[in-house]
Structure formats: structure tokens, C-alpha cells
């Protein structure tokens, strides 16, 4: 693929430059932004460009295109829940320009062939850069390393490896995986869940689980694995990423590890920043997720940790499920929530409107740092002249009751339906073309065509 300038000469709309007038940049300054040739071509006031589509961005916040390090796209294998195309659409709608596709597909993303297939599906859809994650163990079986090197050197250039959904609980296997990925600057993204301590677990273990009669998922089951893994990472001098931190104790362990100089990064989901276990009271399975919703004290600790940098990034853990997987008794329901379309609004509600994060911090935790952890190029760069035209415009003053129409993916298992949320994505630009404009997702064939033109 290339980012040749002046594709507008082709006469196709892909080449149409966008002149964004008066947007607020992450640092708080206001500027016009000219996108042309797949780049941020010019910044400043009173810009003009012949033939440009002008967007009035008065009052709108510009952010570098968001990068989600933790997305489940479900294809191949579960395309009744989501496909690479529909998941990409959900991502664009939420302001994302890149998603890392988790490995628990069927077949598992544990070979070069499967990760290249997912990469190609993402390229064909064209809404976002789809960067496949590779499985750590063959078939997520937890016993034998997958072909990590083959995936790393494949066309998909995999750098993030994860058995997410399952924990690499075998300490020796975890040690070997951490060591092995050093060969290609990889990272192990661990789903930290001690399996024996969480057998048949249904919700956070505490006062409420006892009352509701649901088997508890104790905080220690997460914290014990994180503590073990940071020590392993230190011992072998490798890089560890901790997925979806959910407890105050986990924050303490990460803080300790970072103070010790261990090369660890940590992630939190939007839902763990906003929702608490109290929502389980009515046994509504939309609130069933793994790791489970925790206590108010945990939510406060996670917010503070994101604000002080102990937690590096926000990632959605977008987990689509068909209706029948949630429209049932609690025990029978699947874990997971869709989160791409709502992520920015939830982050705004949880940490921006509370004064804990500025928009520059949001750009860091939802774009720059996840791109860096995932070693992906052309994403997560600041809005400066010459940067790739990966950009999101949001209206932070908007307020809306989040509804089914706000979801662009195939599945509707959102915990935020009927909830009032701040902020709205107005436009998303990926490789210089608009994937969302005026809050509306652009047509798939149009996006695919523009995308095809752009990468030849």
C-alpha cells in the first residue's frame, strides 16, 4: 500500500481533500486542518484549498484516530455475532481508525494463514486498519506455543500475542512465551484470571455475590496472576501487557511493578471505568462480562490509575454476542459487551467530565500509547503536518440517550442502551477518507471503493 499524494487528480472522491475549520486540537488550541493526499497537509487559521470539502468544526474536538488494542471481530467462525466488516464499521462509528483483532476466532488466529486472512478481510472492508493479534498457544489450548514467529513474519506482522478469553495460566509456558517474543519485539497480552480460583464464576465475589447466590470471581484471582507475570517479565527481561485490569489491588501491583522498572503496560475497559456490580441485581445478562463488573472502590481506583499513568490505555474488549446468548438465565449467558461505538462517550463520562483526564490524555490513552504497545505504524500519531490523515472529530457538548441506532455492529449486547451519555463522534477519517461524516457511517461499497483506489 502507498500513501501517494495528489490522488485527487484521479477524479474519484477518494481524492477529495477535507478542510476542517476551527477544530479544537488535543492541546486545546484551535486550528483549521487540511487533509489531502492521505496526510495532514496543513494546519493554521484561514486555510483554503480548491475543491476541498469544508467541515465546520466549531466546538468540535479533534483527536488522532483512536486505536483499540482489544477487539473481538468474531470472523472467522462466529459471523452471526460480528464480521470483520461490521466490526470495522462499529469501530469507525466510535471514532477508531485501527483495531487489534483478538485471536479467539474459529479457527483460532494461531497460524500465519489465519492472521493473513483476517488482515485481508480488514483491508477489503477499508473502514479501519485491522491488525490481527496472534494466539499464544495452539488453539488457545494453553499447552503448546502457537507459531509465534510465523505470525510475526507473515504479511500481518503480528506483534501482540494473546489467548484472551483464557489465561496463560501455566507459569512455565508464560515464561517461555515472554522470552520467545523478544526475538521480534513482541508482547504478551495476558488475560489475568487464575482458572482454579474462578471455576464457574459468575460475578465479582463480595457481599452482593453472596446475596444473589452467584459464584464469586474474587479479585485475588486477577491480582495473583498479574503479580506472577510482572515477576516473570522482570526475570526474563521481556515485555508484558495486562488486559482489562478490573480491581484496585491490580492497580497496586502494576504501580509496584512500574516503580521497580518492570516493562509492563496495563489496560482498562470503558465499562470497568463506569459500571459497578450493583447492575447485576436484576440478573440482566447484558451486564455479564469477564472480568466482572466490580465495586465502586475499584472503579474509583481504576480512574485514578488511568489519570496518574499507572494504567496506560483504554481498550474496549468489544465482545459481540447474538441475542440468544444474552436473552436467558444469568448462568447460561455469555460473557461480554459490545463497546466500540460507546467507548469515547463512556470515557468522557467516566474520566473527562469528572476532570481526571484532559482531551490530550484521551489522545494518549486511546490512540498514541495503544499504537506504540502494538507496534503499529501509521496510527496514533499527533495531529501535525505530515502525519497520516487518521483523525476523529467529536462533539463533547452533545448529550444523547444511547440506543440501538447508535450501534453499527451486528450485535446489540450493549450495557448502555437507554443510558444518557455525553459526547458524539461526528466524523472519522481513515487514510484521508471519511468513514463517518455528520455522525453517519459511510456506505460500505463506497468505503471499499475509495480504499481500493487508495491502496491500488
Amino acid at each position, binding site marked *: 500500500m502507498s500513501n501517494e499524494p495528489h490522488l485527487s487528480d484521479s477524479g474519484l472522491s477518494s481524492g477529495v481533500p477535507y478542510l476542517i475549520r476551527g477544530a479544537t486540537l488535543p492541546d486545546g488550541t484551535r486550528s483549521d486542518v487540511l487533509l489531502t493526499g492521505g496526510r495532514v497537509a496543513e494546519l493554521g487559521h484561514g486555510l483554503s484549498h480548491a475543491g476541498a470539502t469544508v467541515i465546520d468544526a466549531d466546538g468540535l474536538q479533534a483527536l488522532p484516530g483512536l486505536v483499540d488494542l482489544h477487539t473481538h471481530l468474531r470472523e472467522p467462525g462466529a459471523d452471526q455475532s460480528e464480521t470483520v466488516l461490521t466490526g470495522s464499521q462499529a469501530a469507525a462509528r466510535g471514532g477508531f481508525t485501527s483495531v487489534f483483532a483478538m485471536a479467539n476466532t474459529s479457527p483460532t488466529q494461531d497460524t500465519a494463514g489465519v492472521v493473513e486472512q483476517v488482515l485481508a478481510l480488514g483491508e477489503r472492508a477499508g473502514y479501519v486498519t485491522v491488525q490481527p493479534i496472534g494466539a499464544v498457544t495452539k488453539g488457545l489450548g494453553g499447552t503448546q506455543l502457537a507459531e509465534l514467529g510465523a505470525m510475526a513474519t507473515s504479511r500481518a506482522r503480528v506483534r501482540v500475542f494473546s489467548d484472551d478469553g483464557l489465561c496463560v495460566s501455566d507459569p512455565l509456558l508464560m515464561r517461555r512465551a515472554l522470552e520467545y517474543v523478544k526475538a521480534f519485539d513482541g508482547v504478551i497480552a495476558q488475560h489475568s484470571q487464575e482458572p482454579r480460583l474462578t471455576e464457574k464464576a459468575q460475578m465479582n465475589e463480595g*457481599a452482593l455475590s453472596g*446475596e444473589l*447466590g*452467584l459464584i464469586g470471581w474474587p479479585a485475588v484471582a486477577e491480582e495473583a496472576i498479574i503479580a506472577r507475570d510482572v515477576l516473570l517479565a522482570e526475570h526474563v527481561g521481556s515485555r508484558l501487557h495486562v488486559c482489562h485490569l478490573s480491581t484496585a489491588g491490580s492497580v497496586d501491583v502494576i504501580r509496584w511493578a512500574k516503580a521497580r522498572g518492570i516493562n509492563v503496560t496495563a489496560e482498562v475497559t470503558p465499562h470497568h471505568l463506569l459500571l459497578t456490580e450493583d447492575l447485576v441485581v436484576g440478573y440482566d445478562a447484558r451486564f455479564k462480562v469477564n472480568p466482572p463488573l466490580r465495586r465502586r472502590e475499584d472503579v474509583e481506583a481504576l480512574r485514578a490509575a488511568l489519570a496518574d499513568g499507572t494504567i496506560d490505555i483504554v481498550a474496549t474488549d468489544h465482545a459481540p454476542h447474538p441475542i440468544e446468548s444474552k436473552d436467558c*438465565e*444469568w448462568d447460561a449467558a455469555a460473557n461480554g459487551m459490545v463497546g466500540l461505538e460507546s467507548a469515547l462517550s463512556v470515557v468522557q463520562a467516566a474520566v473527562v467530565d469528572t476532570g481526571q483526564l484532559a482531551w490530550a490524555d484521551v489522545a494518549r490513552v486511546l490512540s498514541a500509547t495503544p499504537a506504540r504497545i502494538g507496534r503499529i505504524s501509521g496510527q496514533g500519531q499527533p495531529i501535525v503536518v505530515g502525519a497520516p490523515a487518521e483523525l476523529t472529530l467529536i462533539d463533547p457538548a452533545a448529550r444523547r440517550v444511547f440506543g440501538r441506532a447508535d450501534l453499527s455492529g451486528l450485535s446489540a449486547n450493549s450495557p448502555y442502551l437507554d443510558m444518557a451519555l455525553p459526547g458524539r463522534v461526528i466524523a472519522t477519517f481513515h487514510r484521508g477518507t471519511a468513514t463517518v461524516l455528520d455522525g453517519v457511517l459511510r456506505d460500505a461499497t463506497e468505503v471499499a471503493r475509495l480504499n481500493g483506489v487508495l491502496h491500488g
Partner: protein
Amino acid sequence: MSSNNMRHLLSTKDLSRDAAINLLDVAEDMADVATREVKKLPTLRGKTVVNLFFEDSTRTRISFEAAAKRLSADVINFSAKGSSVSKGESLKDTAQTLAEIGADGVVIRHPASGAPAVLASSGWIDAGIINAGDGTHEHPTQALLDAFTIRRRLHGSASRGKSLDGVTVAIVGDILHSRVARSNLWLLNTLGAEVTFVSPPTLVPADVSGWPAKFGFDLDAAIDAQPEVVMMLRIQAERMSAAFFPSSREYSRAWGLTDARFARLSPASIVMHPGPMNRGLEISSAAADSARSTVREQVANGVSVRMATLYLLLSGDRENA
């Protein structure tokens, strides 16, 4: 009979004191019916009650069946074993089937905590829902029949209108997995009784700071406190393999109502068990068969309490309930 109608009976936690006492009083009226020559009332004639059992429980099912029949309801027993449910039919499809059949009341026993609440709030079916035991959550009619039994033992024919203010109750055994313990806790507390739980430390929920009860590990101390009621819970043998306690012998020695402990109880105290009992494990035969044991009364009272529940849920116009 008064009829402060209820929509569903899902838990005792959300039962008010007045509603609970009213239900027990209605159960007294129902108990009177059982002493007549014709043990049947026409109250629920034309109503259909479905016993929807996803778990085997012959005792609870026949108790509800007897209760519904004594109120002249039509009864359908739907056991998940050997039915389409065991072939993967969802709770939703089963509920919608029962709705089409015209069920007015659904008595549901389910291994998943909260299944009755999901059924009641789903919109799949408009029937009154009675929780006949859900997972490790609640078993409200068991608690109601236990309270009814205690009240009758204490007040006899003068029971109507009475609460259980100040009555001391020790509940012994597997609190963690017991829906009977939870339903009893909330109801006994609402009725004014004082509850003490006694169990191995492994069989108490992780955080019980919000439970209105005392907790202890020492059954001998609890016995020496001379509670008016000792309620023994059934211990499941499979808990041993999950390392909750080392052996049934050790459990029995520390937390069983042995002959020696039974002998130390006050003659005025009563011994309860929700059944089925593991004789020689959590309760000795001498205790189970003594005059202080209410085990058989509990079974009889279960029918009266379930008649009262069905009556309060299903009689009259449900739309105005």
C-alpha cells in the same frame, strides 16, 4: 380470607412484614381446610398452574401439586429431564410455550440463581411466577413454611397475626450454597427473629458484613446459648471433593447435631430440617425422630403455605393485581 394480592413470589428479601404475616395467616386458614372431610376449595377453579422443574425435587413438586389441587387448579408438571429442555431448548422458548398453553401461574425450580426473576421480568410470559428454589439464591416458600412451623410451635392456635419478635434461631451447615439459609435469613429478620449462622469457615459467603445475623464456627457454643430453634441444613457429599471440608466424619463431629449435642438442648427448643436429611451426618436419628423435631410438620405445613401463596398470586383479577 384477606387477599392482599402479590404479582410474583421471587424472594423473601423483598417481602414486607405485613405481607409476610398476612401470608402466614392465610396459610393458617388453608391448614384448617386440611382438617375438613373434603380437603378442597373451589378458589382456583379454571386456573392453570405449571410446575416447571429444571432440577429434580420430588418433595417440593408434590407439595406444590397438592396445594394447587386443593385449590381446584389444573396442574401441569413439566420436568426438564427427558423433555425438549434437555435437548437445548431455552428458558425463553419454554416460557413462551407455557404462555401459549395459558398458564396462570408458573412454579419454577431452576439450578441458575435468578432464573425466576428473569422469567418474571422478561415479558416472555404474563403468569404469576413462584420461585421454588433457584440455584444458591432463594427458596422463599421453604422459609415461609419454616416460619409458619415455628410460629405454630410457639403460639399454637393463637398464631394468627403474630410475628417472631425475639425468637432465637441457629441455622447450621452449608450457608454458602444454601438458598434455604438465605430465604430464612431475610424472612426471619423481617419477622423479628434473631439469626445465628454456624458453619465451617469455608461454607460462609466471602462477605457477609451486610447480613443481619451473627456468625460462628463453633456449634457447641451455639448450642450452649440455648437457641429456641436449631435448623440443620443438608450437607452435599460432593462438597468434600471441592475441599470445603476434609471428610464427612470430621464434618459430622464438628457441625453435626449429634445425640450428645441434642441432649444439651433445652426441652423447649425445636429442631428443624428442610429435608431430605442425611441421617448420621448433619443430624442424628434421635434428634430427627424426637418430639422436638418438626421435620414432618414442615412437610404438612408446606402444603398450607403453598396454598396461601398460590391463592394470593392467582385468585382474582391479575390485571388489577
